[in-house]
């Protein structure tokens, strides 16, 4: 490594750790947020969804049906009645999420060998209620059928995410997204701070601070005063080391290296330790993961550095970045299947490393995919890394030039 990178690298590392805001985004959020988030979904599935059993004529077989539904792990019968109105009232009060209705002739029809009917009314405020109720009732219906041996049997195999858990499905995607979003926030915060200081300096005592600011000096930071309420104070005399500033490009490399170092550590923690702590599927091969995450981190870092040049002030980055997590998660094609994302939005999603990072990581982690299985995503991330690097390089040269005049 050339020594011209080492200096800006160390300076930037120092600056990150001096800035509490940057520490929050680049360290605290990656460390704590995944734990909080995973804790939310830790139960993975909804159990014992409350339901009311309505029997017009309470009788043996109908009771047996409800008893079996109650015994299933998915549903709990909280009340039995013969009145539909009473059942609906319980649903309205939120004490039940579904009504299982067994008509008057239920037991008789079963006894006579005719087809009997069961009606299931579901509260649709959560699709998981519906899923639990339908599964429990379907299973009990099949289980109580006294029918001849099936002519053809079938079995369904959950090949991946075998528990069909909500956390196992969503958390891996969220973890990868957190990497990108925290880098965007951390980088933007520091760049916005630079712009705040420049405004503060250029807007005031021009004579006290004649030397132009190069990118190298911006990256210094620690000799700048905190802004406080005093826009009118000139900055304190500068640190002697400022005099030997590095070129904008060397600075870019040094800063990127500092982000890479920090993000590598937090990413390793998020993608390896967090899933382990919460017993999520982990089929990833270590080397595959390492090879895949390198271009992802680079693409995220250089995208963040490119975007950060647009951040007008320190706090503005939060107004610009935080909300994007929600649409980016949906665009990644994990919850809403990628094959069903309209073409326009699919093209938009290609701009963001998270799209490829999430899909690649989910397949490596949850499906045990190899690098050749995810080569499309892998290649896309390298292309993004290069393109965003070139943009960041151009932007830093432009900005460097602007402040040298």
């Amino acid at each position, binding site marked *: 490594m050339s020594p011209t990178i080492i200096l800006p690298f160390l300076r930037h590392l120092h600056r990150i750790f001096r800035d509490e805001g940057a520490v929050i985004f680049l360290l605290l959020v990656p460390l704590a947020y995944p734990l909080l988030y995973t804790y939310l979904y830790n139960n993975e599935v909804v159990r014992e969804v409350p339901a009311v059993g309505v029997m017009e004529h309470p009788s043996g077989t109908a009771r047996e049906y409800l008893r079996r539904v109650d015994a299933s792990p998915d549903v709990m019968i909280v009340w039995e009645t013969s009145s539909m109105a009473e059942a609906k009232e319980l649903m309205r009060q939120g004490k039940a999420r579904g009504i299982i209705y067994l008509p008057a002739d239920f037991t008789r029809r079963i006894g006579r060998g005719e087809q009997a009917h069961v009606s299931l009314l579901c509260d649709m405020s959560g699709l*998981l209620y519906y899923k639990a109720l339908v599964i429990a009732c379907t299973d009990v219906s099949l289980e109580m059928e006294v029918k001849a041996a099936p002519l053809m049997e079938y079995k369904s195999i959950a090949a991946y995410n075998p528990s069909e858990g909500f956390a196992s499905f969503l958390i891996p995607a969220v973890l990868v997204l957190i990497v990108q979003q925290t880098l965007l926030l951390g980088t933007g915060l520091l760049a916005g701070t630079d712009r705040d200081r420049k405004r503060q300096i250029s807007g005031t005592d021009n004579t006290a601070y004649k030397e132009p600011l190069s990118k190298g000096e911006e990256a210094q930071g620690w000799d700048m005063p905190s802004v406080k309420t005093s826009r009118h104070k000139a900055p304190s005399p500068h640190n002697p080391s400022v005099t030997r500033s590095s070129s904008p490009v060397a600075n870019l490399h040094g800063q990127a290296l500092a982000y890479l170092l920090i993000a590598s550590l937090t990413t390793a923690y998020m993608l390896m330790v967090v899933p382990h702590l919460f017993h999520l599927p982990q089929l990833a091969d270590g080397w595959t993961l390492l090879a895949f995450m390198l271009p992802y981190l680079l693409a995220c870092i250089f995208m963040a550095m490119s975007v950060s040049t647009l951040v007008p002030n320190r706090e503005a980055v939060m107004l610009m970045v935080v909300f994007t997590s929600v649409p980016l998660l949906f665009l990644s094609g994990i919850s809403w299947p990628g094959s069903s994302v309209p073409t326009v939005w699919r093209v938009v999603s290609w701009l963001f490393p998270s799209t490829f990072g999430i899909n690649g990581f989910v397949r490596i982690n949850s499906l045990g995919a190899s690098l050749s299985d995810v080569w499309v995503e892998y290649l896309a991330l390298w292309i993004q890394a290069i393109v965003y690097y070139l943009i960041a390089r151009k932007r830093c040269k432009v900005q460097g030039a602007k402040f040298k005049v």
Partner: protein
Amino acid sequence: MTREPLYLMAIILPPLLCYVLFTSLMAAGLPTRLPAAVVDMDGSSTSRAMVRNLGAFQHTDIVAHYPSAHEAFDAMRRGEVYGFYLIPQGTEAEVMTGKSPLVSFYLNYAYLIAGSLLYEDMRTLSELTDAGIGMQLLYAHGAASWQVEAVLQPIALETHPLHNPWLNYSVYLNNTLMPGVLALMVLLVTVYSIGTEVKHGTVRQWLAMSNGHILPAMVGKMLPQTTLFILMALLGNAWLYGYLHFPLEGGVWPMLMASTLLVLASQGLGVILFCLFPWMRMAMSAAALWGVMSFSISGFSFPAMGMSADLQALNHLFPLRHYFLIYTHSALNGYPIHDTAGAYVALSLFALLPLLCLKRLRRVMLTYKYME
């Protein structure tokens, strides 16, 4: 506020972008034509008919045929298919000789929604095929149709998903996702605008405009934002209920009230967060955390009853949770408004709570220094 285009952009663009994105992304209601594969090792007329039938289902698009499960698994790992249906060799022959063969299907639940929808199609196909074969045999033996029904399916289950009969995901998600994004932006912009006064050291000038009184100063500062945010909220309602005709069983007024209160409650929460964390950095971070956590903790995707008891208690502190309760009660289920009086009161409390800490806010703003 007008000086900085950033405000206007932060109030209008994120909600608008999300309205358009989410509703166009999920315009189909349910994902259709999900890529799936078939491993037909039988190659008989029965198996070919099954494959044809599977391809005709709404959610399934058969994009590949593989000679063995091994290749199908590879395709799944490459992300080309979300599942595959396997018909082993000799299936038809076994059906003919009454040996009840076993077919199987493999699903990738790492993509939970895609996996679940394919499961439904593949299971239905298996049931129907079994029934179809049975029906032919029974009719051949001269059975009546009511007997055929009873033999094939002794207990028929009819499901009635109330007010969302097609299990429309757009209805299910966007009614809360869209207000959620709006509430997140309200929180952030509120904290940002108060913090900016402290940061630029303009608190005294700002207060001087209302003779040092914090309440009129605050109202004056918030009102333009409030107006714009409420307009965005109403636009969201018009979009969902007017243009897309999503279920609105309880009439339009409860939702308009809930949307307006959600904006006010989020502003109130923003002010409270600033009182609690008078460093702009901490207040902004807290606002972001609150806003983003809302999406999970309000329980519209993963129900609150599936969360631990402490989280179920904690969700009362999130305005979006109360909004979600109003939406499910009123717009989705059409229950009377007094059922959710508690949620309206909670949102109003969030909006009014800053009144209690105005004094502290004034002191905080005048004495605290901006720290990065």
